[in-house]
């Protein structure tokens, strides 16, 4: 072998291997940096939350800090109602917008809808709260669960619209053509062929958006506000878990801090449970679509 030419080549090869390794190592470090805080947050919330979680916490109303005890039952119900209403308002609008953008959006209206959805998806959540405050709280003259739901729906809609659009775009064109070729209209094709085929990803989008709004605090501060009592109606101030966490965490009482941890755990569990239910409902359909 000609050493004069092989040595630099060997060196180059070694350098290339080294660079390769370095890159993989950097990626691994980045991965660890990203995952560690996540695992740590989960660990902390579950570890500390579980210690202060009790039947009383889940089923009774709050008590004054000087008395001790009490629970967040009203806030748990409030969160379910406010987030549920936001989903009921937001999902149809978001899905319909996504359908328009994907299937009929090759025009200026579709382009502006896409642009606005992307901007709104990055909307600071407190701004959504201000909008709902101006629109509903001021008009009604009081804080209410419904105004909180509107604020959350404002955050929910653009996420669902964008993920629905992406989900529909992933349905292959030959599925649409198969339907057109049978004399089915565009609208019929969209609703009966394209949307069902994309439903798994549409659902994922809804879950992501739900997880996002379930933990939102800022938009609820001056819309749903808070309450120490059971919900009296969707037109009344309502306690929610995130606002309670905020209020309890900044209080000077150790006993309240502990309840805030338990509340955080309940919120986390609710989001995960919703996710698990949606996924298991979908799993059968997905297996069917895979031919089983």
């Amino acid at each position, binding site marked *: 072998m000609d050493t004069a030419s092989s040595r630099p080549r060997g060196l180059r090869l070694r350098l290339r291997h080294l660079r390769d390794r370095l890159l993989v190592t950097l990626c691994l470090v980045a991965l660890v940096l990203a995952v560690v805080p996540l695992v740590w947050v989960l660990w902390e919330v579950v570890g500390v939350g579980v210690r202060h979680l009790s039947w009383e916490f889940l089923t009774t109303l709050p008590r004054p800090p000087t008395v001790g005890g009490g629970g967040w039952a009203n806030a748990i119900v409030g969160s379910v109602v406010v987030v549920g209403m936001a989903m009921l308002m937001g999902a149809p609008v978001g899905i319909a917008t996504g359908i328009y953008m994907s299937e009929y959006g090759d025009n200026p209206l579709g382009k502006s809808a896409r642009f606005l959805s992307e901007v709104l998806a990055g909307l600071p959540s407190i701004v959504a709260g201000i909008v709902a405050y101006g629109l509903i709280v001021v008009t009604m003259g009081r804080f209410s669960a419904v105004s909180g739901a509107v604020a959350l729906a404002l955050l929910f809609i653009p996420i669902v619209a964008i993920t629905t659009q992406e989900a529909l775009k992933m349905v292959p064109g030959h599925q649409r053509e198969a339907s057109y*070729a049978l004399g089915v209209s565009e609208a019929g094709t969209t609703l009966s062929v394209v949307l069902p085929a994309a439903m798994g990803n549409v659902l994922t989008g809804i879950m992501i958006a739900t997880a996002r709004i379930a933990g939102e605090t800022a938009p609820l501060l001056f819309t749903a506000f808070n309450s120490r009592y059971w919900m009296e109606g969707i037109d009344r101030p309502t306690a929610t878990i995130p606002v309670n966490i905020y209020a309890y965490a900044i209080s000077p009482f150790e006993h309240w801090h502990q309840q805030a941890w338990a509340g955080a755990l309940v919120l986390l569990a609710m989001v995960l449970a919703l996710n698990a239910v949606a996924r298991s409902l979908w799993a059968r359909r997905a297996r069917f679509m895979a031919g089983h």
Partner: protein
Amino acid sequence: MAEQMTTRDLKVSFGDQHAVKGVDMEIRPRAVTAIIGPSGCGKTTFLRALNRMHDHTPSARVSGEVLLGDRNIYGDGVDPVDLRIRVGMVFQRPNPFPTMSIRDNITFAPKRHGLAKGKALDDLVERVLHQAALWDEVKDRLGASAMGLSGGQQQRLCIARALAVEPQVLLMDEPASALDPTATQRIEELIYDLKKDYTIVIVTHNMQQAARVSDRTAFFYMGLLVEFGETDRIFTNPREERTEAYITGRFG
């Protein structure tokens, strides 16, 4: 039931690209017409103009006439959705609806069009599955996912699905090119049986296939219909030099 189709100076372009450049062709009822030609010769574009599939491609422009019987399908007052009930299509790759069962794939369109319901719908499912030579293989699992079928079975299901809306013309765009030889043979036998009742146009890359299944063959080249005649004559005694060059494998 089967209708004749006639094209007059049919042109299709996408932007400034002219894919079909003025084709006059008579497609006989109750016969198989094969369209052959090298890639990019406009044969699929031509086929898709026969049931207005180009309506869904914004850049596509179609001019000239396509007559179904004696009515221009591009004329005023023709609804492309209605037209496609009469002119069905089978695609290159089997494309059953993944969210639907075998049965639902077939009943989807007839139910929407109000063609049958109840017992009549069950009869329709059985009849078209028999026509597509698939009944014996799927009769015990009509509720199962269509995606669990083999590629060849899926394609026969797609043919059954197309037949379920009772079309007069069946367009087939390389219906066997994604299938293995056994499945291909079954599809070819099926085409042979179906021509008793339908007008069939099949685009194919496979010249043996064209020779086996078709009564008449059209050779397309660069967007033009170069030669059109009885299949036997085209393959044994082509008049055009380009046709001969293509069928003897000198280009394409």
